[in-house]
């Protein structure tokens, strides 16, 4: 076929040098070209192009929606962060308040304890002073008694009979000053 297909048309082409200029094949080519273009046009305009257009717009819609959803989530995340920061600040303030309260309470307790201790110390001091006074008084009386007794013994040893009352008066008179 390929070798001997050079019939009238083929020979005409060969003599012209270019099969492109073999006008006898033009009607055939043009006919099939028109058929082909019409078929392609119908397939494209009825099926392929609307389908691709709808797929593309659908995808565009999905992308737009997804971006909107992402923005939404981002806003929510920012909100949550704000709430977290606020809660943190509140907690810090609360902790500070509690610490101050505890400190004040402890201060009050310490103050009370100090006061009590001070009062006790004052009471003890007063008691001690009373006892010291008592002891000192006791000592003075004992000294007087000892002086009386000693004076009596000394006077009796000297052989002088003196009334006990006058000796006591004399000792009291001497030790007064």
């Amino acid at each position, binding site marked *: 076929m390929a070798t001997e*297909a050079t019939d009238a*048309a083929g020979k005409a082409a060969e003599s012209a040098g270019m099969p492109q200029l073999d006008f006898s094949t033009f009607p055939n080519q043009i006919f*099939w070209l*028109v058929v082909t273009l019409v078929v392609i046009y119908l397939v*494209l305009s009825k099926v392929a*192009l609307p389908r691709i257009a709808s797929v593309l717009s659908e995808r565009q819609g999905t992308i737009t929606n997804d971006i909107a959803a992402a923005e939404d989530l981002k806003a929510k995340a920012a909100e949550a962060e704000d709430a977290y920061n606020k809660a943190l600040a509140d907690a810090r303030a609360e902790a500070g308040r509690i610490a101050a309260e505890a400190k004040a309470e402890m201060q009050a307790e310490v103050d009370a304890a100090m006061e009590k201790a001070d009062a006790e110390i004052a009471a003890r001091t007063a008691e001690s002073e009373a006892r010291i006074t008592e002891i000192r008084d006791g000592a003075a009386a004992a000294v007087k008694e000892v002086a009386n007794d000693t004076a009596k013994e000394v006077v009796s040893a000297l052989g002088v009979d003196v009334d006990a009352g006058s000796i006591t008066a004399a000792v009291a008179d001497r030790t007064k000053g």
Partner: protein
Amino acid sequence: MADEKDGGGLVFKPMDQFIVKPLFGDGPVGVFTITNVTLWMALAILCIVALLVLGTRGRALVPTRIQSIAELAYGFVYKMVEDVTGKDGVKYFPYIMTLFMFIVFSNFLGLLPLSFTTTSHIAVTAVMAMAVFLSITILGFVKHGFGFLSVFWISSAPLVLRPVLALIEVISYFVRPVSHSIRLAGNMMAGHAVIKVFATFAAVVWIAPVSIFAVTAIYALEVLVSFIQAYVFAILTCVYLRDALHPHH
């Protein structure tokens, strides 16, 4: 080109790949004959259906590989139409998408070994270019009436120059379909013919490595050209469409 050389026994037939012949039997090529043109155009349709219809069957939110290629093609052409023609040109997007997908798949299928490149035929590209030219001219007149003629009247130029510029503009306007179609067909034909010539040289032992390297290199270039020519055809259509929609510069 297709004559035999005597020395070395090399047979250069780089243009044979472009011959239109019936698929079944050896009869003459009539209007409705099923030819290799029919086969490769049908394959182009199948590829487009496989990519843009079967590939997007899942309507997946996270696209599969084929679906993302389909979406890429859609976005590429859609953005081109919107950028060049503006918002009001978007309703012509399916037509431009049709042209672009047909050309890009025909070009790529033509790169398969032993294949037939439908877009290398001036008959094919000229029909597309004329269709673009006529529909855009008609659209311009329907939208703007005779105001469409202001596309030739450069109001920003000095008044003296305007008639001269108008003449040039008119000529360039009518040359558009010619350049539009020959650019595509010429690129595809030349690239394929060059590959074939180098492939023929591969039969000679001492030059075979160079020739095979050249075939590889030119093939890579042709892959690029296949896409770029489809892109150029589509973007020029958009540019012409913009003139029809907004004739006032």
